[in-house]
């Protein structure tokens, strides 16, 4: 047995949480692929519905890809804290001698890694389905790489706000969508800019700035929301 210290530090508490999440992911590996499968489904159906007009599909590709990724993220959002709220894990998180915001951040990043990261791996396949020109792939991946963690962090706040409710599905979507729109606009916009031969740096930098801001603020806001929800 590894001798964990008497008092957990930020690092050891995070390690315990990461190990737990990876084990749970492995036990329910079928569920873990759902968001990626959902996004693939949306894109495939879209490609089929639009017919075989290459130019039309290529023009719509950035928007379609982003919407598919965003909706699949929304689908997975409810699982972020709900299980931990229902079995009392969140109570023990609050009693842990490390800040709740830190545990929320670790949990959110793990959630991103297990739901959004597999999706990023599928992006080349999806881009090919939609005839997205190859030179745009790096911009697309970079925009998604910056945008999806931002979506996860924003989603964590909304998810924490609704964690006290029994059925939060629709409310969750209604609360999250306004926060998601700017990410969608800048994310899909930067790819569209690059498609027209412009420099996509503006949109990407804004996404990066948003991500940095959310990394600092979102866990604190989500932790506060969790505390309020448990009253």
């Amino acid at each position: 047995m590894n001798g964990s210290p008497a008092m957990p530090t930020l690092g050891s508490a995070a390690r315990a949480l990461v190990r737990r999440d990876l084990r749970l992911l492995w036990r329910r590996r079928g569920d873990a692929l759902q968001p990626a499968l959902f996004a693939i489904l949306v894109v495939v159906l879209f490609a089929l519905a639009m017919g075989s007009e290459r130019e039309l599909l290529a023009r719509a590709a950035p928007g379609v890809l982003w919407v598919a990724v965003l909706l699949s993220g929304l689908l997975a959002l409810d699982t972020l804290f709900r299980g931990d709220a229902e079995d009392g894990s969140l109570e023990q998180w609050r009693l842990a001698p490390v800040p709740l915001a830190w545990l929320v951040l670790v949990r959110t990043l793990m959630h991103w890694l297990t739901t959004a990261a597999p999706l990023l791996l599928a992006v080349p396949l999806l881009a090919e389905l939609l005839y997205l020109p190859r030179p745009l792939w790096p911009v697309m991946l970079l925009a998604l790489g910056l945008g999806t963690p931002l979506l996860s962090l924003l989603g964590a706040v909304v998810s924490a706000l609704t964690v006290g409710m029994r059925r939060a599905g629709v409310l969750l979507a209604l609360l999250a969508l306004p926060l998601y729109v700017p990410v969608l606009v800048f994310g899909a916009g930067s790819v569209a800019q690059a498609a027209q031969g412009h420099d996509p740096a503006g949109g990407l930098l804004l996404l990066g700035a948003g991500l940095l801001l959310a990394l600092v603020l979102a866990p604190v806001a989500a932790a506060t929301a969790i505390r309020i929800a448990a009253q």
Partner: protein
Amino acid sequence: MPQTPNATVPLIDVRGLSFARDDRPVFGPLHFHVERGEALLVQGGNGAGKTTLLRVLAGLLDGERGHVSLDGAPAGPAARAGRLAYLGHLPGLKADLSALENLEYLCGLLGRRPSLELEEALAIVGLAGYEDAAARTLSAGQRKRLSLARMWLSPAPLWLLDEPYANLDLPGIELVNRMVRAHLDEGGGALVTTHGAYAAPPVRTRLLELDDGAAA
């Protein structure tokens, strides 16, 4: 005020603590303290506020009035860290993880005594042989025993036990009493809620009776 020789400051000192939900008083004002080597038995019927009291003391509920100090320091996140271990109605176990994995995760989060192995703790609570059983396959009583193993591993001196006897068979009740006694012998303290149907642990015990908002 009786004092144990090894400590002059009580583990927890509560003065004028009261709590109201939507302007309806739940309990209090209460005055009590728990010293090292002492258990406080909180009794009261259903809805008397026993769970609320423990949740307020653990810091899970805000908005209380009055003064709580732990080891002489005003209760706050810093004062509570590592001093309190809480056993509530929700065990915080993940159904898909095994007993041992659950214990490892909770101890990683909450801290543990380095002197004791996880497997030993499981054996003490009578779960030897169930190390690899998923928590979903355990009975309610076995899950309670798993939570007791977590308490036993906790380095915190003050235990807050909310209905620790619920779901347990007679040997289980005896186990809780034995664990509380051993914990108190090591200089710890405990608050134990019960609705009065079970025998109290045979230790230095004081009684706090909660009765629909009025304390005796």
